[in-house]
């Protein structure tokens, strides 16, 4: 540096405390926490199971096994053994394969139900938070109403309203769970919108003449979404159990669909003779929900500046 005058002044621009990004900071915190890695492992395991169960069950069910799941009626209701790690169910199907294949329906229901909650919650939360006034009152009071309704009662009402003569389908349950979940997302998202709405860059966009849509989606959403993401990750865990509860009560998924809820519900009647039928799907259920709940908790701490 013999000629310091030629130093590019702009190159020294990056001033340290400001050099960090929100996501970068979050990642720095997360990667140091073992619970984050545990929950990530759990989630990856179960999501993988839902997407390609064949990776977990080998050999994959072939054409000679149309029900798809290694069923031999003669082997019905055996306890765990080296051949059938989790034992077999009432139809003699390998229970390990059953439980593994059950991940798909359980997680799909949880995922779509969560998506419904988040989308509905964000749309209504944006409207309520951004426009305020009468619209806000209507949306917020409706959400309050939903809160007052006990969850299961609500689910029963919605499910009976949706169910046709042909019986229940998976999407009925998904919609019912999603339908009951949005009020909490609305509350949460609305309050974040209220905070972000007052920030100067949102005001600046308004002063430029930006339309409401642009402000809501381009300026508010990316800066307000984090708490909702955390919440929905945690609630994914809860929703997996809700599906199981509904199935257990006999108002959940169609009986022929392979889901943890259905397995638990069926096993409940035979708990004396074959406790393994209850144990394994419950264990999967618990670990899968735990994965999402833990992940949500970790995200929350990583996103919260007070933990930094």
């Amino acid at each position, binding site marked *: 540096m013999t000629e*310091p005058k030629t130093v590019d002044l702009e190159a020294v621009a990056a*001033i340290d405390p400001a050099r960090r990004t929100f996501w970068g900071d979050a990642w720095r915190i997360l990667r140091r926490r073992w619970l984050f890695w545990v929950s990530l492992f759990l989630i990856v395991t179960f999501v993988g199971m839902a997407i390609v169960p064949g990776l977990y069950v080998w050999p994959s069910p072939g054409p000679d096994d149309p029900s798809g799941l290694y069923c031999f009626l003669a082997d019905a209701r055996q306890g765990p053994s080296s051949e059938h790690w989790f034992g077999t169910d009432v139809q003699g199907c390998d229970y390990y394969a059953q439980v593994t294949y059950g991940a798909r329906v359980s997680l799909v229901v949880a995922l779509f139900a969560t998506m419904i909650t988040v989308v509905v919650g964000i749309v209504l939360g944006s409207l309520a938070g951004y426009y305020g006034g009468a619209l806000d009152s209507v949306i917020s009071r409706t959400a309050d109403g939903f809160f007052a309704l006990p969850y299961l009662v609500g689910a029963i009402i919605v499910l009976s309203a949706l169910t046709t003569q042909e019986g229940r389908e998976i999407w009925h349950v998904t919609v019912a769970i999603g339908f009951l979940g949005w009020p909490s997302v609305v509350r949460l998202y609305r309050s974040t919108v209220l905070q972000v709405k007052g920030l100067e860059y949102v005001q600046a966009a308004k002063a430029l003449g930006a339309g409401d849509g642009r402000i809501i989606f381009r300026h508010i959403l990316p800066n307000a979404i984090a708490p909702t993401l955390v919440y929905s990750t945690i609630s994914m865990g809860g929703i997996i159990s809700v599906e199981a509860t509904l199935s257990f009560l006999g108002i959940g998924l169609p009986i022929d669909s392979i889901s943890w809820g259905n397995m638990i519900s069926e096993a409940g009647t035979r708990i004396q003779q074959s406790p393994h039928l209850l144990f394994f799907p419950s264990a999967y259920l618990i670990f899968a929900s735990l994965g999402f709940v833990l992940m949500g908790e970790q995200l929350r701490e990583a996103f919260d500046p007070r933990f930094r």
Partner: protein
Amino acid sequence: MAVPLLVVEDLSVEFHTDEGIVKAVSNMSWELAAGETMAILGESGSGKSVSVQAVMGLLPMPPAVIAGGSIRYGDTELIGSEPSVLRNIRGPEIAMIFQDPLSALNPVYRVGWQIAEMFRMHEGASRSEARTRSIDLMQRVGIPNPEIRFRQYPHEFSGGMRQRAMIAMALALNPKVLIADEPTTALDVTVQAQIMDLLGQIQADTNMGLILITHDLGVVASVADRVIVMYAGRTVETGDAESFYRRPAHPYSKGLMRSVPRITGPLERLHSIDGTPPSVVDLPAGCAFATRCPEVHDRCTERPALIQIGDRTRTAACHLVGEPVGEAV
């Protein structure tokens, strides 16, 4: 010069962070005598607060590390002392007030109670004695209706009143040294004038030593006896206020002095120092001001030492001081 109360020698403070080592304060030295007002000036992030937080033992460790140096109060070395020794010095002998009085006062306790607590905790005063003394003190710092104000919460006070309450708490135990970290930055000019007047009066009454941190050259001019200018964690100039203002020596001080907008004098274009301060994570090996200095030259790739200048107690860290370069400001 009188026997110094507080002596800081060769103090260096670092923050060990993910992005690297932040050299927040490098080799800082100063002394403070009774009755004296010393101002620490400098740009945001130059290490003003960190240097006094080290004196007060307020640095978060980790990430902060005192990388070297000594801080002595009388005969006691503060760095590495027993907590019990420190408790009798920090607070009773050396007190501090902050920029943001709202966050320094506990919102859930009554203001009066928080002041009274000082007497009860440190002097074991009785409840009624603590109350009388607190009300006296509130009166002295200019809080009107102290009996009523005694029972109010911080949020019921205005910004200026809160700062007075903070000052009352700091003064409760008659400290010998008061450190004021930007005591008026959050306040309006008319209130700032009230607070600075108050600090001046108290100092005249008690012969307390005052360390004032600010980036307002005007505030410094009105109260300081001595000035320290910091840039990027390093001391770039020290000296008595009068001759410093008459003829600042370091190019940064000169530039700063000329950038200050004024309410009097000719209305020429404001002088500005181009560029931005360097990142403290990645300080240049040479003079930290080199990238912005109008007088930069070959030797600036070497770090300049603080050099004694003039006949008084002035020093500056620039290769050009001592040589007749640059016109007076």
